[in-house]
């Protein structure tokens, strides 16, 4: 079984601030990390590999600049077998559609049985890339996975919604998007770090390597159908209105009137 995990290197948003003038992220001096949902995906893949214990492998794929190498090395140090960095200036400025086009091409080129992606990245929060990759690959998908098991040639996934869970069965090949609750990522090991730099390599796939796998009009900044119109920090909500000293009947009337004013009821 070849398990491919797609990961994104993101700024640690717990330490990131917005530039008050431009409303863009200040990335200088902010540490980069593996996106938490993706890291849970790596752990789930490693656990699956260990459970299957049948020669299954875990391959990590990331699209990003050369600096994303360290995120892939970290995944290798956790125990992944192989890593691919999809990197080319032509890929720069891609929106979710263009990104999923490129990543799907990479995954197809590498080969896969199960693809795991994180649910969403903490810097963009779109949750679009995983499902889009599945569409490009033409394989069934389940998002919001909190448990993954393989039984024979089927994958059993527990999908978590806000108020319910679904147990779903998928054929292989398929794609699953992982919640960070799916698994608690292990630490790297010391030997893992040594192997990540000495025994393993991060293979780089460029535009040239992938150009036959996608339509070049649909990648990069030019190939991206969406643009960021405006970004702004969330405004704190007001304190609300206070109506002290109302009787129960007056309170009911006030609430109903307010809800009607706002066309909620």
């Amino acid at each position: 079984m070849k398990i491919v995990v797609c990961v994104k290197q993101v700024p640690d948003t717990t330490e990131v601030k917005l530039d008050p003038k431009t409303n863009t992220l200040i990335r200088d001096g902010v540490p980069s990390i593996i996106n938490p949902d993706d890291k849970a995906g790596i752990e789930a893949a490693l656990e699956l590999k260990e459970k299957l214990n049948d020669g299954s492998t875990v391959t990590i794929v990331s699209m990003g600049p050369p600096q994303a190498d360290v995120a892939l090395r970290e995944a290798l140090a956790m125990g992944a077998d192989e890593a691919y960095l999809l990197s080319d200036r032509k890929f720069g400025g891609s929106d979710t559609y263009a990104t999923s086009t490129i990543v799907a091409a990479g995954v197809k080129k590498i080969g896969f049985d199960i693809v795991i992606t994180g649910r969403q990245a903490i810097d963009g929060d779109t949750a679009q890339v995983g499902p889009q990759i599945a569409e490009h690959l033409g394989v069934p998908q389940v998002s919001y996975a909190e448990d993954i098991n393989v039984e024979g040639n089927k994958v059993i996934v527990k999908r978590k919604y806000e108020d319910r869970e679904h147990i779903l069965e998928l054929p292989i090949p398929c794609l699953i998007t992982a919640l960070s609750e799916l698994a608690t990522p292990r630490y790297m090991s010391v030997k893992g770090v040594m192997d990540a730099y000495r025994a393993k390599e991060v293979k780089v796939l460029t535009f040239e390597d992938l150009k036959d796998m996608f339509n070049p009009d649909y990648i990069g900044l030019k190939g991206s159908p969406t643009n960021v119109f405006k970004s702004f920090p969330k405004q704190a909500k007001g304190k609300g209105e206070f109506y002290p000293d109302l009787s129960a009947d007056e309170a009911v009337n006030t609430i109903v009137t307010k809800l009607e004013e706002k066309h909620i009821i």
Partner: protein
Amino acid sequence: MDFALSKEHELLQKLYREFAENEVKPLAQEIDEEERFPRETVEKLAKYGLLGIAYPVEYGGQGADYLAYIMCCEEMGKVCATTATIIGAHSTLCVYPIFTFGTEEQKQKYLPDLLSGRKLGAFALTEPGAGSDSSMQQTKAVKEGDHYILNGTKCFITNAGEADVYVVSTMTDKSKGNHGITTFIIDKDTPGFSFGKHEKKMGIRGSATADLIFENAIVPAENVIGTEGQGFKIMMKTLDAGRISMGALALGIGEGAFDITVKYVKERKQFGKHIAAFQNTKFELADIKTKLDAAQLICYKAACEKDAGRPYGLYAAECKYLCAATASDVTRRCLQLFGGYGYMREYDIERMMRDAKITEIYEGTSEVQKIVMSNHLNIR
């Protein structure tokens, strides 16, 4: 000359920091307060290879270098000196002499278990009447056929009772002084080998410290490390290596104190402003950081010299001396910036100050380090 860490070392540092923050720091205050050996931490250290960092893979080690190892001591020292002490006593003091001077049989028998952390190690040199002066050791080993009979007491032994394997220094020929010292590997379950009471200490209170008691203990002759009479050399070489890791641990305590103090002075307000705004705070912390960075340079240099296969004894002694002095100085001054809160056991800084003091004493006092340095410098 390039002072940048390699990519490997950077990633290892990330591993150490994540592990220290999530697994070690949350227990630091509790194990100090309860004077409890953190067995659960030892198991986690073992799981991620942190008990066999700088030893070859063929013996079950992780295949990293000495710099990688001392960086681990430094990062653990930042959050919990007890944990760093456990690592140091195991990884250098016990494992190093077996790896460096042991026979192939001894290495095959002991290293895989020690380096994987299935077994924990300890080292015993100090006696009630022989601390800095090792030639005054009273623990005797007398050969009888294919084994030795040991009698005597070792004191202040780190990991005592918790460790499974002990590297113990004994006197086989008193008339030869230091040249009559012989070192043994002794298993915990050796007949005639027992432990004294748990010592109550000022700092590193989660670390197990006790006497080792030998009463006609029977140790196989094959457990001698090197040859009879070679013990002094083995111990001195081991302590040379250990000085760098102990220096790194001390450095870590100082750095940890600096980190929490910087955070505190930006939160604490007096006279209507954060105490970080006062010149005294700025000057103190600038001076402290300078001293820490200088100590880190000599510490890393000592490790790099060792990794390069060059003589490092002078730098190792300088490292232990400077880092320990810096840790004591820095923690005391950081506590002063905390004011009354710093004196409360609820805050980490008072523990760090108590922990720092031991680094000027154990594994060779600061005074012994200066003797070692002056010998290296041929100042006699």
